[in-house]
């Protein structure tokens, strides 16, 4: 028996990708500019987002593909962006100038939400809770177990910009986000 860590993944470069399907696919060699889920926000920027009531959506990865800078976001970022804008919140896609937007999916047993920054309490929490509730309902309809959910946000702690992750059963995370939306808890970052 081999260690579980060795199980389950192999780089796409070793896989033979048949191009007989309808879409020709390219496997590009990418230059990683910054590590996944790492952001370049400064403490001032995070505070600025919070005070201005701006919701920042952070890309999971920013990297170069064929010379073009690409910022790839989690697929749920679009639903969150549109719902937040409809609720009157200013949304900013936090990506370097000139970066092309794309979506990033990564296999994970858990459902990983996009990283949020700034005005994440209140309405955004309500939006996320609704999103999770819809997913739970879909799972129940198909008699599936709802996934674990990871909610991530940028906070300022000990004078540094850090990412905080809340991970747990979908129902529990949904309830927690609803509570936070109701209480309007906005005390994540140091003043």
């Amino acid at each position, binding site marked *: 028996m081999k260690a*579980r860590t060795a199980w389950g993944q192999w780089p796409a470069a070793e896989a033979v990708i048949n191009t007989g399907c309808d879409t020709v696919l390219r496997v590009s060699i990418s230059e990683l500019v910054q590590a996944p889920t790492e952001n370049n926000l400064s403490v001032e920027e995070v505070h600025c987002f919070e005070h201005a009531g701006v919701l920042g959506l952070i890309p999971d990865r920013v990297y170069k593909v064929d010379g073009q800078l690409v910022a790839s976001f989690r697929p749920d970022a679009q639903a969150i962006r549109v719902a937040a804008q409809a609720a009157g919140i200013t949304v900013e896609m936090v990506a370097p100038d000139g970066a092309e937007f794309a979506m990033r999916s990564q296999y994970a047993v858990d459902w990983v939400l996009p990283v949020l920054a700034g005005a994440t309490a209140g309405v955004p929490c309500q939006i996320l809770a609704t999103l999770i509730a819809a997913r739970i309902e879909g799972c129940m309809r198909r008699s599936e177990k709802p996934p674990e959910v990871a909610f991530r946000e940028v906070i300022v702690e000990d004078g540094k910009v850090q990412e905080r992750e809340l991970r747990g059963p979908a129902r529990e995370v949904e309830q927690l986000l609803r509570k936070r939306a109701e209480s309007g808890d906005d005390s994540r970052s140091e003043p």
Partner: protein
Amino acid sequence: MSRLMITSEFQMNGTTVLISGAALYEGEQRPDPAALRRRGQRRATHGLVVLEQAPSRAEALLRAAIEDMVDAFLLDRVQNADLFARAHQIGALIEQTFSCACVIDRDHGTLVNDCGILALHSRLGLSPGGTTWGHCSLCGAKDFMCDHIPGSVYEGEKCVRNIDRWDAEEVSMTQRPREPRCFRTWAHTKDSYARRVGGNTPGRCWHCRMCRGRGGPTTDDLDPAQWSDDGWSMLEAAIAVAQHAVTRPSIIND
């Protein structure tokens, strides 16, 4: 709709194992399992009606019916539990009437049995990771450049994100693939190929004739939460299903 098929070769306990299967579906939102169910049943009925008058047409219809039923089952196991047995019954009829042969994949040196029936027993799915670039089906805007949400309906038209490009980064073998139809995963070893193709005889599949799946699914088949989460057990089970279907017809495959 297009489907990305992937084949990967690796060593396990000194044996060369190939895993192939569907890793990604694109071009449409996930289909409604109820619609797949209805189409599968219609095709099956049609196939049975024309079985004597137009056998080749009947064979195509019945094989297509199996694929629809398998997809419906994979997308909603509990609601389509009866299709598990129905697909096996149709499979047994096809096998006895037309026979089922595996395809020789000379590029990889294996016999491939890509019949959907094996996906009913599969405990191994493929789940890809990577970056995709797409555009909105309603307005053509690139990602994040419009306010349409994929999956939502606007004035009677459903928004779909059409993928223009996918840069693969990894493909995981898992019991919980993002797309349930990606349980269409087949494991092969080169040994079976050598045994079978030595005489240049393509392997035949007797699975549906022998499998107790004709009597219906087990509780395990209906509930992935009950499956062992040991990756190597999954893989071994996948190889067993594929190998038995190809080379050991006397062994019940599930």
